[in-house]
């Protein structure tokens, strides 16, 4: 049983102070390949899906299925070879597209590797400064972001990033992206190698962000957290979309997740074992407790 199941993800949590309106995302027939030793290795093939502003999408798939590549293409770090990424309905080359791209936040896998400044505050300020904000605006955004990730600036602001614990570093790196006030937040395996308490804190942060209206895309192997946090899913297999849209837990859906080296979320399995309709399975332990009471 995975370790984070002891916590309750409250879906109706209070809004974060970031107050951002989410961004709508649409991908049209995206194709991308890597060149290795003069051979093309396709990483994405005809990937198409859309996500409403304020929506939340779990990006699932085995290792090497193209999750990280998709996030980097959406952020614009790699240009798609075919197809297009539409942000709020605008495509590349249209007026204001690069401005929209700046409102996409991408948290890399093990983002603590990117920490470099001499203090936590300086590291978080790096992104906002690149956006050309005034120092007052930068300071406000930094304090807000540090507060949001549970690293109060008065206690952590002047600490050296490398003197923090692994979990604190992960949250600091997240603050570095949140301080840029993204309207679409892409997270690449944010829960990898975190202790249960940090996982709990991180998922609580994501719930608050979602409640504040930020559009979330979460690439993960953790189907239970994906189930708790995301309304929709996109299942990738060797760069192709195997399933997109709402969670579907008929016989077919369970087989599909199993075939991709995943499994059904615990609460869905529980509902199935209890002889209840798995499509009605609760998202959180609180909802489960209520339904079973």
């Amino acid at each position, binding site marked *: 049983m995975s370790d984070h199941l002891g916590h309750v993800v409250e879906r109706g949590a209070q809004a974060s102070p970031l107050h951002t309106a989410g961004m709508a995302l649409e991908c049209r027939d995206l194709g991308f390949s890597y060149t290795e030793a003069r051979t093309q290795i396709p990483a994405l093939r005809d990937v198409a899906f859309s996500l409403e502003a304020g929506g939340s999408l779990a990006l699932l798939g085995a290792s090497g299925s193209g999750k990280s590549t998709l996030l980097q293409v959406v952020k614009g*770090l790699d240009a798609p070879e075919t197809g297009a990424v539409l942000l709020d309905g605008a495509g590349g080359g249209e007026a204001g597209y690069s401005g929209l791209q700046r409102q996409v936040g991408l948290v890399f896998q093990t983002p603590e*590797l990117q920490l*470099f400044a001499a203090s936590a505050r300086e590291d978080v300020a*790096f992104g906002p400064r*690149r956006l050309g904000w005034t120092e007052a605006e930068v300071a406000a955004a930094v304090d807000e972001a540090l507060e949001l990730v549970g690293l109060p600036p008065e206690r952590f602001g002047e600490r050296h990033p490398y003197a923090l614990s692994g979990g604190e570093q992960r949250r600091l790196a997240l603050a570095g*992206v949140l301080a840029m006030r993204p309207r679409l937040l892409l997270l690449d395996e944010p829960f990898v190698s975190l202790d249960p308490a940090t996982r709990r804190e991180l998922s609580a942060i994501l719930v608050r962000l979602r409640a504040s209206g930020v559009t979330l895309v979460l690439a993960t192997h953790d189907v239970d957290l994906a189930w708790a946090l995301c309304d929709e899913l996109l299942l990738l297999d060797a760069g192709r979309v195997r399933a997109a849209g709402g969670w579907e837990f008929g016989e077919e859906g369970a087989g599909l997740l199993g075939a991709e080296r995943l499994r059904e979320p615990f609460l869905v399995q529980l509902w199935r074992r209890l002889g209840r309709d798995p499509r009605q399975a609760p998202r959180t332990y609180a909802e489960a407790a209520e339904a079973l009471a």
Partner: protein
Amino acid sequence: MRPAVAQYYPGDSPIHRLDARAKFVAVTALAVALFLRDSFAGLAVFAAAGAVAYVLSGVPASWFWRAFRPLLWLVGLTFLAQVLFAPGEAFYSFWIFHFSWEGLAFAAFLSLRLLVLVLIGSVLTLTTQPMALTDGLAWLGRPLRRLRVPTDELALMVTIALRFIPTLLVEVDQIMRAQRARGADFGSGGPIKRARALVPVLTPLFVLSFRRADELALAMEARCYRPGIVRTRLHPLKAGVADALLLVVTAAVIAAGLLV
């Protein structure tokens, strides 16, 4: 991603299959001989030997070109310096420059010698895995161990350094992407601005490298690595008939080159 330093071209040609030690000895001997002989005839012999090795190696010309390209300015500079300043009877003079047939011939000779040297050296580096070359050098340096030179340890250091070049390049790419996602700009501005833009890349890279070095040292100790003892090898160097033949042919080429 192809490392810029180790320019090995994977292949299975007769040259690739030769022992690293034999190849290193042959190339070193040829390089020395090349500089002992001051005649176009000798140069032609060594160039022919280099050309035969190049054809046998099966390495595409474009890879050789990559080895030559950075050296062309050096060759050009050598040529110019010799043409302009070499002593000899001038057939044309201009200000402080005197063009003479002797000067032209000497400049051409020096430039060609440099090119032949690069050709012969490239055959070695393009057909020999860096690790095999390191092992070969460690073997050749064994007599130095009597003088307490830690040859095996030096070879291991070089091997580890080479092994981690591709890893570091991948990490640099990852860190640069992460910082670009935070708005970093590595492509614009003057040299100072560009150098400053690298700070967010280099700091994490150094931290990561030191951490990795620490972990590697611990892991090696945990697997009983002790400096100063003779290690066995998974792929022992094996010299055969072909390697002996290479040395004989090399000796013949050198004799021919020095005597013609």
